[in-house]
């Protein structure tokens, strides 16, 4: 892909760099500015459902973006990423059901549980390659799904309703939907900047090197396993945070959050937006959610349109939506 882009660039690299760098930052900038301004639409009397929809988009984007670190930058196709969303969400709900509603404790537990699960399953999964990696991550995701359905004390199949959203500094400000919105926005922006820094760092370059050629990276002295496992844990923890937000936004958790179809949705979002660009995940999440929302207004059989769109995207729109803008980093 990068070679194709280079054909368009002027011959001198010194001249080529500044405009391309600007263009690469323009798209994410526009996206975040739009997100920042959405709540202002309330001034023109828009309904709260827009706020809720865009909050959900940002939460989905957060999970998909963390998956981009694995698939887009590390070529680790995890088909069990929704498990971490579930872990984060259940951390909130289970603690809340025992009366622990402090957001910092819940967040710390969500991060801790995601870290442990990612470290443990990642250590096993990364011993395998290719198809086997896809299948074993899928299996671990299913394992959590069935654990969730059998947790009778926490709602089992039916899930669990949150008594209240998380409290921070003893305040219930998260009850306000605009506050919830900006918390999700802040987390998404923070995670974006963090992941940007990670992929630009030496660690990120090694990870991309492993994506391109693990054998060669090993030959020049890097141990791919350690780098991949670290990336796997980071991605799992960020997805755990998205689960924390999701539980707060919907005030409900259920095993359905960890179903393998949700992991499939995350990959769909990512490929739709464009792999390996981070902001592609955000654009993919927005298009995915808006499309599902709009189609479901017109017909209850929206999946009849959604499925073929997915197939067509895979067959004909390589590089996703960001690929169309030519701003892949």
């Amino acid at each position, binding site marked *: 892909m990068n070679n194709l882009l280079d054909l368009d660039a002027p011959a001198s690299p010194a001249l080529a760099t500044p405009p391309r760098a600007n263009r690469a930052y323009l798209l994410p900038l526009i996206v975040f500015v739009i997100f920042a301004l959405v709540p202002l639409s309330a001034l023109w009397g828009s309904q709260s459902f827009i706020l809720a929809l865009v909050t959900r988009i940002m939460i989905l984007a957060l999970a998909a973006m963390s998956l981009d670190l694995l*698939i887009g930058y590390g070529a680790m*196709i995890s*088909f069990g990423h929704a498990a971490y969303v579930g872990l984060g969400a259940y951390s909130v709900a289970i603690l809340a059901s025992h009366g622990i509603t402090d957001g910092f404790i819940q967040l710390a537990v969500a991060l801790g549980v995601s870290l442990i699960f990612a470290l443990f*399953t990642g250590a*096993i999964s990364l*011993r*395998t*390659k*290719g*198809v*086997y990696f*896809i*299948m*074993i991550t*899928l*299996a*671990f995701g*299913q*394992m959590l799904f*069935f*654990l969730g*359905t*059998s*947790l*009778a*004390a926490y709602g089992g199949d039916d899930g669990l309703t949150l008594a209240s959203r998380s409290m921070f500094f003893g305040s219930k400000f998260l009850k306000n939907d605009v506050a919830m919105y900006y918390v999700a926005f802040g987390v998404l922006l923070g995670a974006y900047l963090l992941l940007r820094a990670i992929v630009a760092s030496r660690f990120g370059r090694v990870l991309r090197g492993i994506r391109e050629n693990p054998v060669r990276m090993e030959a020049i002295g890097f141990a791919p396993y350690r780098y991949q496992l670290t990336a796997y844990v980071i991605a799992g923890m960020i997805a755990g945070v998205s689960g924390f937000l999701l539980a707060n936004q919907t005030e409900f958790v259920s095993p359905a959050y960890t179903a*393998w*179809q949700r992991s*499939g949705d995350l*990959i*769909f979002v990512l*490929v739709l937006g464009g792999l390996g660009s981070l902001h592609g995940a955000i654009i993919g999440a927005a298009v995915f959610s808006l499309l599902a929302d709009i189609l479901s207004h017109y017909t209850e*059989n929206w*999946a*009849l349109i*959604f*499925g*073929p*769109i*997915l*197939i067509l*995207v*895979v*067959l004909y729109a390589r590089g996703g939506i960001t690929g169309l803008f030519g701003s892949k980093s």
Partner: protein
Amino acid sequence: MTLTLALVQILNGLQFGLILFLIAAGLTLVFGVMDFINLAHGVQYMVGAYLVAAFTTMTGSFVAGLALALPAALLFGLLLEVLIFRHLYDRDHLDQVLATFGVIIFLNQAVKYVWGAAPLNVAIPDALSGAIEITDGMLYPVWRLVIIAAGLAVGLALYLVVNKTKLGMLVRAGASNAAMVSALGVNIRLLFTIVFGVGAMLAGFAGAMVAPILSVEPGMGDNVLILAFVVIVIGGIGSIRGAFIAALLIGLVDTLGRFFAPTLLKLLLDPSAASQTGRAIAPMLIYILMAAVLFFRPSGLFPSKQ
């Protein structure tokens, strides 16, 4: 008494495992020969169940329904292959996973659109609807025994075809090195289309056989698909023998685990905690088993590629 119950559970596990084998056989060959991940294999199972339900209602006889459903399932599989899958063989696994995921989304909704969301019931043929006494006072449904017999028969037939015929030789060769087989002048695409069609029909056959004992509903193939993947990954991709052994293993471990885990845990924990934990652990057992197998043998038990 416990022994008889255990026997019933073992038969149930065997029956479940053989159904998994019918589904996994096609999946593992398609995977092995063309390196193609087909998530939509589970919907073949669902389509098979729906076809037999529709044809049985139409003809009034399960046998006639099955006789019509099998070629229909075969044609349906070939149709999907020609329309969509054929364009995915040269793509990477990510594209294959996604596109076939799209097929699942579409077909799950399509059967809901055509047949409604409510589960359909299919009657067991009268002659086979009874139960027989396997030990003193213990009745076992004949239909489940029929499923076991059918599964074993298909397993034997596949074994003979794969190991004793020229076609089977090409399939095995294709599974271990497709490029070389192609270079030797074999039309690998045609071979694959045959394998794909048979695999789709077997999955449809599995769906048709369980239609009378399970409810036929949209999405019924989704969980079975994941189990079939567990089977072929444990067995080793591309290996029919591996799929057979792994399918029986998964069927037995899952069925017996659900039954015995609470009982066994009672030796360690108090009864209510034991039944709680047992119910939580049992469905996870097969995934733990899979992780353990892959930990020690990252390419499964019987890898076909050297």
